[in-house]
């Protein structure tokens, strides 16, 4: 794999909270335009790994390289790093005091200094992209879960990120709303947005992922191309996990 294609690299990342070891020597390489799905049992450290990427949780050991630069060395500039790394959360976390379009406008205005007018245009454009242009002036508690999550995706896209991180984006949704969110994510992925997604949606993984990474007990146990992973070539633990979640 040529180095210039790599956008993100984790080198032997470990993380512990006090006595609890959550991640152990996790190494990972993500290429530009690639979509990677992280799976594994709950408590296996997937979310923590995601949070180490954008330094919301600083790694205890090891390093994170973004576009060839080590970003985990100096945590004071974490906010600058996060401008380029979009993140979507399980519980949406839309800003409750702002309506849909204002949620999208906030970061471009306050971080990038964009004018209110330009930010509003951008907000409406992105609401169109996630297929809810008509909900611009609705507040989070007036939107369905699926709509909230799509606004959250639009909010992350407003910073023109170079990579998107999704932390179980559909786990808090009612079943009938999962599809609309996954569709938006698939579209973005197909357009070439580099994506790292923690999810239990194996349908999405098959459809959108280039690679599947399987984690257990804070370690990366398998890292394989999607067809190989689902084609019975994954290791024993991964196979067992697959059979459990696919019933």
């Amino acid at each position: 794999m040529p180095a210039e294609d790599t956008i993100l690299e984790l080198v032997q990342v470990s993380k512990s909270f006090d006595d609890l070891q959550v991640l152990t020597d996790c190494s990972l390489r993500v290429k530009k335009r690639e979509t990677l799905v992280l799976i594994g049992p709950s408590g296996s450290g997937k979310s923590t790994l995601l949070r180490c990427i954008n330094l919301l949780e600083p790694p205890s050991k090891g390093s994170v390289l973004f576009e060839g630069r080590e970003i985990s060395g100096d945590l004071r500039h974490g906010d600058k790093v996060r401008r380029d790394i979009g993140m979507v959360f399980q519980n949406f976390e839309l800003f409750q005091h702002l309506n849909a379009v204002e949620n999208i406008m906030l970061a471009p205005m306050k971080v990038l200094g964009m004018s209110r007018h330009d930010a509003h245009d951008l907000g409406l454009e992105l609401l169109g992209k996630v297929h809810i242009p008509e909900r611009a002036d609705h507040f989070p508690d007036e939107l369905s879960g699926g709509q909230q999550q799509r606004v959250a995706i639009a909010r992350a896209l407003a910073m023109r990120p170079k990579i998107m991180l999704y932390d179980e984006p559909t786990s808090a949704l009612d079943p009938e709303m999962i599809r609309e969110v996954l569709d938006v994510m698939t579209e973005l992925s197909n357009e070439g947005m580099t994506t790292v997604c923690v999810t239990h949606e194996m349908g999405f993984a098959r459809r959108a992922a280039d690679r599947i990474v399987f984690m257990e007990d804070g370690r990366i146990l398998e890292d394989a191309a999607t067809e190989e992973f689902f084609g019975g070539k994954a290791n024993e633990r991964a196979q067992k996990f697959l059979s459990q979640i696919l019933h």
Partner: protein
Amino acid sequence: MSLDLVLQYLTSQSFAHGAWITLLITVVSLLFGVIAGFIIALAQQVRFAPVKVLVTGYLWLFRGTPVLFQIIFIYNVLPSFDIRFSAFWSGVIALSLNEAAYMAEIIRSGLSSVKKGQRTAGQALGMTRLSVLRWVVLPQAARIVLPPMGNQMIGMLKTSALVSVIAVQDLLLVANQTASADFRYFEALTAAGIYYLGLTTIFMFLLATMEAALDPKLRRARATGAAGFGGLVRRIISNTKKAGADNAR
């Protein structure tokens, strides 16, 4: 009793001046109280032990002694250590320091009512901690904090009458002096009462306006012309009900 005399007192310069002093003491003490309270609330989140001890000591001291005690202490005891303030400023300092202790608790609970995930979401967008505080946490905390803060503000208007014991010419002292000079207690105190109620009413309207301004959905409703004076009055009435239990000082 004479209504003419009440009217005469109401329009007299000394009563108007007394009301002005009461208003001034209230507003200045509230301003300092809110600023100091905000700083204390932020300091409470600091994990550094000496800061914690300092803050806890402050709250213990000012919530554990009567305001009246604090006013008299600053006016009468500090000068023996060569720290001197005018009666007016002694009153303002005591009321501000006392108010800060209560405001700090209100603001702290407001800040902690904003879920951690909201801050994380702000940070994930590349916002700095300060930016997240200003644009994500404070606007949400403000809505939670405003009703109890409003009770404190109206409370302050009445508590400010305590400064009359150190001879600040506030509304109550003026009324009391006038009454004992003319032996017209009913008329003088009625005039003072009317001033107090007038000021309280103005405060209530201001608070209701601020609450409405902070309510994003109401803001949207106003843009389409659905809210107005009636909504403001309804808000005041519901606030008065909430405030009923809050008289424990």
